């Protein structure tokens, strides 16, 4: 069921390519030793190189190169053993050198693939065109002084990976899934923390439309620097509708760079093609071509973690999970790991239900994270065991779980302390049933006369009498036997 937008003249298809800028997880910048910590005081993490001082020279940070290679391998992409850094020249106050060191003709990573999982259970392969390393610019602060702008160079020189997709995405939903999946892979690899609020993951979207069924590629507009998945989706949809409207009124779309106003939900022109920069790319003469050591690439390859796609398949195969459940669990490496420690050697479906149900609910409710969970995997596993061996009913288990959240204690201890063990002693349950029947002869008579609905009322009364501890299956069986004979 392809995504189409209805116009007055017919259905339109959206063509989307994404450029994701992912900040490389590294304690030092791409070409200087300065620190990269987020949120430091302005201009406290700036070396002479980052400030573009005369005579300063860049020296490549080996770790950032390894991170780019790791990411390339994680995206099943071609690793280019020789790549070249180029200068992208333009003037701006927060670009101290007057150029950004980037990669142009020869990026470090070439063609790759990313698989997105559609909600209908199908999956789609999205082409990755390239990944290149580049340095970030500084930040201009225009709201600190009535007539001047302030410049913070802390970010200047920080290593970014620009990951460019092919124009293979066809809906805002696919774009969202692509970003989420890319972020998930980056986090698994530990090459980018994926934090969109802090700007360590930013997205430019290239959007064009075409009549449904057509294969042409029409003029695209680039929407710059969108910083949440939801905004990317809104921006794409707005932009696509804008294109359709222009075309249907007989107009043409100009290639241009646009900005998304998240407050108004609209995109607006930032600079037109005529004002587009001529970046005058040329190989940076301060840096030699980057030649990778094959042994280094092999070492990184051997050390790659199991990635979401492989993990998902394994969860489906080994734990018998549905594709959907497996997909949810593997989205974050930490939740996948948490699930595995709960599920190992236990009823995996029961474990999955508890992790995705009550446990995820508790994370939301408490605002805690999976790295600092309100209930440990060991304790949740113990709870699953206690349900499985009949010590706890489902209902009791929920009560115990609530107590676990409250106290942090393990379920066995709580059951002991609160006497919450399920009653499976036939005699005790029968006694409780007898007491309720003796107190309500009229209702017993009604059931016998055929009013089966009242059975539920009896179950409730007996549960109440046993403080919920009666084993529900046994209670039902005994009650039926006693009343109906």
């Amino acid at each position, binding site marked *: 069921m392809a995504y189409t937008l209805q116009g007055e003249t017919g259905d339109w298809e959206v063509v989307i390519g994404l450029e994701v800028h992912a900040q490389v997880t590294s304690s030092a910048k791409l070409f200087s030793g300065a620190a990269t910590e987020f949120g430091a005081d302005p201009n406290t993490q700036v070396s*002479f190189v980052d*400030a*573009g*001082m*005369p*005579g*300063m*020279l*860049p*020296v*490549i940070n080996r770790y950032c190169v390894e991170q780019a290679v790791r990411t390339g391998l994680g995206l099943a992409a071609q690793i280019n053993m020789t790549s070249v850094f180029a*200068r992208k*020249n333009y*003037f*701006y*106050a927060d670009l*101290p*050198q*007057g*150029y950004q060191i980037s990669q142009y003709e020869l990026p470090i990573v070439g063609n790759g693939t990313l698989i997105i999982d559609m909600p209908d259970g199908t999956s789609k392969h999205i082409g990755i065109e390239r990944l290149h390393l580049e340095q970030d610019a500084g930040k201009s602060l225009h709201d600190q002084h009535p007539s001047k*702008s302030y*410049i913070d160079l802390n970010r200047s020189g920080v290593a970014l990976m620009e990951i460019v997709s092919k124009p293979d995405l066809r809906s805002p939903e696919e774009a969202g899934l692509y970003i989420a999946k890319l972020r998930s892979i980056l986090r698994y690899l530990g090459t980018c923390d994926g934090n969109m609020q802090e700007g360590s993951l930013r997205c430019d979207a290239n959007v064009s439309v075409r009549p449904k069924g057509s294969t042409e590629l029409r003029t695209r507009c680039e929407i710059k620097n969108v910083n949440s998945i939801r905004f990317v989706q809104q921006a794409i949809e707005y932009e696509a509708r804008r294109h359709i409207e222009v075309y249907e009124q007989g107009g043409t779309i100009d290639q241009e760079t646009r900005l998304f106003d998240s407050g108004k939900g609209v995109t607006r022109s930032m600079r037109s093609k005529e004002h587009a920069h*001529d970046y*005058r*790319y*040329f190989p940076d*003469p*301060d*840096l*030699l071509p980057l030649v990778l050591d094959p042994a280094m690439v092999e070492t990184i390859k051997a050390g790659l973690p199991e990635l979401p796609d492989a993990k998902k398949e394994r969860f489906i195969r080994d734990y018998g999970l549905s594709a959907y459940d497996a997909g949810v669990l593997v989205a974050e490496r930490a939740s996948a790991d948490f699930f595995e420690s709960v599920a190992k050697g236990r009823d995996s479906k029961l474990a999955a239900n508890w992790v995705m149900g009550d446990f995820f609910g508790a994370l939301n409710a408490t605002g805690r994270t999976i790295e600092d969970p309100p209930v440990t995997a060991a304790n949740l596993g113990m709870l699953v065991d206690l349900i499985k061996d009949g010590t706890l009913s489902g209902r009791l288990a929920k009560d115990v779980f609530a107590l676990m959240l409250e106290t942090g204690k393990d379920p066995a201890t709580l059951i002991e302390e609160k006497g919450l063990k399920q009653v499976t002693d036939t005699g005790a349950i029968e006694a409780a049933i007898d007491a309720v029947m003796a107190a309500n002869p009229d209702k017993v008579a009604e059931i016998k006369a055929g009013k089966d609905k009242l059975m539920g009322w009896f179950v409730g009364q007996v549960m109440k009498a046993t403080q919920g501890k009666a084993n529900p299956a046994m209670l039902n069986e005994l009650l039926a036997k006693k009343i109906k004979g």
Partner: protein
Amino acid sequence: MTELANLTIAEACDRLAKGEFTAVELTRAHVARMESLRGLNAFITETPDRALDEAKASDARRAKGEAGSLEGIPLGIKDLFCTEGVPTTAASHILDGFRPPYESTVTANLKKAGAIGLGKLNLDEFAMGSANITSYYGPVENPWKRRSDPATKLVPGGSSGGSAAAVAARMVMGATGTDTGGSIRQPASFCGIVGIKPTYGRCSRWGIIAFASSLDQAGPMARTVKDCALMLGAMAGHDPKDSTSAPMPVQDFAKALSGDIRGLKVGIPKEYRPAGLAEEVAAIWDKGVEWLKAAGAQPVEISLPYTKYALPTYYIVAPAECSSNLARYDGVRFGLRVEGKTLDEMYKKTRAAGFGTEVRRRILIGTYVLSAGYYDAYYAKAQKVRRLIADDFNRAFETVDVILTPTAPTPAFAIGEKSDDPVTMWLNDVFTIPTSLAGLPGLSLPAGLSSDGLPLGLQLIGRPFDEETVFRVAGVMEDAAGFTARPEGI
């Protein structure tokens, strides 16, 4: 005192070691000359107090037995090297008030060897020029005069014109230079001194204000081959802060001056004898060949067919890199700022006021050749030709050990001459530019005087990182030339 200023670095090192005089005395003698010869405008910033403090410290080190290889030797520093706490201008208005909080690797190495800095030497603005007339701080005057016309002020060559003039006028014992297309060798030739542009990658570029990164190389300028060898030994070395610095061992270059060049093959490129070559220059070149033959070397005619493309290639590559390297002079963080109503206006006003004509010309050329639609026709093609020029030399060095050429097509010319047409000026570097494009070591030494009494230099070109052979041959030629002439009155 003047006698001290006439010593070579090697002699001064020996006599300082013997305790015949102190670094303070040697420094005072040079400070006196620096002050009395201010009219040459060789210095942009003089640092006599600092120099005397350093000289005292140097004498103290020597007393403790910790003397370095250039202990107590007063030098001048081309004002393209960043020097910590000392104004560094690149002879440009745009660096007004800039005091680097760091020291370039080369000058730091010289300091470590015990050298004393007398001050910062004048140059063409951002090292762009061949006559030292583009400096914001005014032209430098060559201490040499025409015999026939002693009143006319001559250029010292460029861009390291202040360095060459100061060395020739005995204001400093040696000086640092930088060479992008001939900026050490051509002024050395014009001022009758020795200067070597070592192999690209020999000296760290860290802390040297960049002109054209793939060509810029620091080197020494002094009055003898041995002095240059001593200085280069202290300046050179691998620097992890410069990715293009070569991880090569630094030889004892002075030791290479064995005087024995028997059996060495010396290439004489036929393309270096263009139609307009001054007769005197051609004659001194022939004389050079004779000296080498007499010393047992074997001259071999070679061909460097792509030579004629070197100049146009250089004037694409160097401006392209300069247009990008000079983008950082934007008025935002250091140096000159001329306020404007908008950021763009501030940029325009600052850069218009800050850069001189020649710098602006090269930025414009460089911006043009890198522009979309022109890149392939100019920059990409120039890079290919550059490769061919380097291949010319590689082929030649399969059969010869060193190449001998003139350094410059003419002796020094008058200030104001050749300045109408930039291309005529650029022709000064026709013999030095191919070496720069190929990254090879090139040394200029004084071989004799023109009929009008001006020094003429010859250039020796070596294999990559084979400065030793270059120095060895230069040493033999220096002895043969017996160049003892000095500028009138010096």
